[in-house]
């Protein structure tokens, strides 16, 4: 039987242990061809004060993170990233140096320290949001954005190698536009050519904001004459099915320091493009500033279920569907009040569309601390959940107090932190550092228990040896420790983990010994060769 495992990692690197920035609004993408390469973003400035903005990069599956300065224009405002094929990385950003200037960027393949190339530039744009899929070796890339002319999708059917604009063109997708659309324009492509795009279309601004929740669709990667018009509304016949009419939007409302108002996510079943899930937030429930609703369509967006699940006082919905059809629903929920107020970060996982209660995974429960509030958004206008194969990968922002009680499934910190005193520490490991908001990576996966998979499942154990020198190695005490949580783990598992750790230690010692002997041999050969040359010289 497959066992579930959960990893949570604070993404702030050790060299930035002194940072106190409010690193909110995170996003994440996993290279589908090299899952150990993962890139994340947040509102994080260049710690060195330079002209580029950073991404967070990992090359070991999310265990270790590095800030990589590759985004042009300084610390971006909104930003979004996705991998295509061939390890090509795409980003949609609002540049930090020019207000509301969109850049669509590419790095193909992604390479650390290489500034991304600009493919598209346009002004007066809000909240670019990237989605990508690969079909027949070509990268199909979609960047939802709220243009001054209305909600739109910039799209390319072959974005990987062509020079700028790499096939990108813009399509305005709201035929009912009369006031404006909300910032969130969310595309969701499928390998078979189906592309969904969800958005809020405003109907009224006063006395309160009301909007329709709309899903548009294209059936051929957006390449036709009239992209995103394949789905006609069953009521007015215009492009885009209105899933919910005139819902109240809590635009610029606040809960627990977090600004609300454009919570939206859509995900298509990778095994069947007829099935699509939608989540949005509105103020329709009394007593709740914003309630999240999840609904499903099984006929390509034409008709929709009622609420499969609803969560009050929540935001940042993110949906993802795995290759084995598990549906993941991520959200962050405000609980308590006053001094006891907290942000809870959840992922619900269901295999039957909530016919029975979903497994609710609480990744973090962190305090709402006014001292950590620097700007809006406090934790983000969005977070992220991605499905890669049978796994879920994601990212969220939360208060970074090093307290195991805040992380029910465990957490790993790279930045210096004392979990006993619950105190962050600077690079020197001594100077206290004030709490703030950090991005956290998480990985939820299931494994059957083969040796290789166990190694991945227990990848949280670490063995790092630098410069081991010994004449005789004596181990007086060996302690096995692994971060995170292994669901339903038992003594046999831990025993196998210890055996594996000892094997790795032995392998490492043997490797160091072998290299030492090789170096000695090389030195001897060089010395012999030198003496031989000198002998030749003497003969001369």
């Amino acid at each position, binding site marked *: 039987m497959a066992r579930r495992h959960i990893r949570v990692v604070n993404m702030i*690197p*050790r*060299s*930035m*242990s*002194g*940072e106190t920035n409010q690193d909110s*609004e995170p996003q994440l993408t996993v290279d589908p061809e090299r899952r150990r390469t993962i890139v994340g973003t947040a*509102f994080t400035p*260049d*710690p*060195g*004060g*330079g002209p580029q903005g*950073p991404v967070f*990069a990992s*090359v*070991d599956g999310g265990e*270790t*993170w*590095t*800030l*990589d*300065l590759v985004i042009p224009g300084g610390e971006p*405002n909104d930003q979004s990233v996705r991998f295509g094929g061939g390890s090509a990385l795409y980003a949609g950003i*609002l540049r930090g140096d020019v*207000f*509301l200037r969109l850049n669509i960027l590419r790095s193909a393949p992604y390479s*650390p*320290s290489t500034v991304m190339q600009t493919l598209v530039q346009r002004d007066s744009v*809000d*909240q670019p949001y990237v989605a990508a899929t690969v079909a027949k070796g070509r990268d199909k890339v979609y960047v939802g954005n*709220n243009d001054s002319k209305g909600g739109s999708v910039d799209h390319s059917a072959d974005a990987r190698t062509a020079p700028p604009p790499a096939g990108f063109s813009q399509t305005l997708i709201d035929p009912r536009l009369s006031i*404006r659309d909300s*910032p969130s324009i969310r595309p969701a492509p499928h390998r078979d050519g189906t592309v969904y795009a969800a958005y809020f279309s405003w109907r009224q*601004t*006063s006395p309160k*904001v009301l909007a329709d929740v709309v899903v548009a669709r294209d059936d051929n990667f957006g390449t036709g004459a009239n992209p995103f018009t394949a789905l006609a509304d069953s009521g007015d016949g215009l492009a885009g099915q209105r899933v919910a009419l005139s819902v109240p939007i809590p*635009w*610029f409302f606040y809960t627990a320091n977090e*600004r609300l*108002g*454009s919570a939206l996510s859509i995900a298509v079943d990778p095994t069947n493009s007829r099935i699509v899930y939608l989540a949005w937030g509105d103020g329709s429930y009394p007593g709740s500033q914003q309630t999240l609703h999840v609904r499903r369509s099984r006929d390509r967006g034409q008709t929709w279920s009622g609420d499969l699940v609803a969560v009050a006082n929540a935001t940042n919905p993110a949906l993802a569907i795995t290759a084995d059809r598990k549906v993941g629903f991520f959200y962050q929920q405000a609980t308590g009040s006053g001094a006891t107020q907290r942000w809870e970060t959840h992922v619900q996982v269901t295999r039957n569309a909530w016919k029975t209660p979903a497994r609710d995974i609480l990744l973090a429960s962190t305090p709402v601390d006014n001292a950590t509030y*620097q*700007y*809006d*958004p406090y934790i983000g*206008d969005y977070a992220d959940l991605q499905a890669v194969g049978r796994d879920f990968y994601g990212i969220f922002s939360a208060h970074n107090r090093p307290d195991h009680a805040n992380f029910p499934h465990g957490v790993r910190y*790279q930045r210096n932190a004392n979990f006993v005193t619950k105190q962050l520490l*600077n*690079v*020197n490991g001594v100077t206290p550092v004030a709490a703030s908001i950090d991005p956290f990576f998480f990985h939820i996966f299931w494994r059957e228990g083969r040796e290789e998979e166990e190694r991945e499942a227990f990848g949280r154990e670490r063995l790092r040896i630098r410069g081991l020198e010994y004449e005789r190695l004596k181990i007086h005490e060996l302690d096995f420790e692994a971060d995170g949580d292994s669901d339903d783990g038992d003594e046999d598992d831990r025993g196998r983990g210890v055996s594996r750790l000892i094997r790795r230690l032995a392998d490492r010692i043997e490797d160091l010994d072998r290299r030492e002997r090789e170096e000695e041999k090389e030195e001897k050969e060089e010395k012999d060769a030198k003496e031989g040359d000198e002998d030749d010289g003497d003969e001369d």
Partner: protein
Amino acid sequence: MALSRAHVASVRRHSPACRFVFTGLVERAGASSLSILPAGPESAVVRVERVHHGTQALQDQTGQAVTVLLTESLDTARGERCVFFTDPVLFGEAVGVRELARIEAPEDLDALHDLVVRVRREARLNDLRRHMTSADAVIHGRVVSVRRASDRAEPPASEHDPLWWIARIRVRRALKGRQRGEILVRFPSSRDIAWHRVPKLERGQEGIFILHRDGAEHGGAALAILHPDDFQLGDIDELREIADRA
């Protein structure tokens, strides 16, 4: 103890352009302290002994080992003490920096440090001068009052809306332009990520205001502060002098 001419020339030439200047001891050539950066002949691990210029995050690296991507090979594998002029490129387990230049560390590090600080200050003032040059007006003034730009109840169009407020400023002296008496200046009251670093003016504040026309006018104010540097406190006489030369 004076610095050599070569040291002075190197500091003056390289300090303005780079963001991290430090004296360090080479620990390992052909090595890397970052898992994302493979070791190679152009990389070296250097222990930072003293930071001469850098942000707070870089000042924190004193005593830490950084990885330097070299412009040219080191003379020795280890033990070489140099002043490195660099730009940071990676922040991971350690900091990775790209070397722009390197000089042998002088005996009088204090003198070198003082010179770097002076050169960087000059660079900072030059940046401010350029910023003033690009502005439409620069005044020395005092905020008399502040109010919303509009009383209308329309919701913001975007989460990045600046949410303009208007400051009435009494002009003490126009340093660029011809403003006199009291003028109206827009500033963004928004706490959004796009605007949070731009100063929020308050009644009674006095200093140098660097003002811009952005093509818009709200509440009667065509001039606005738009950048984090657009309100300067400090030595008014020095700021006036900078403005005069802008």
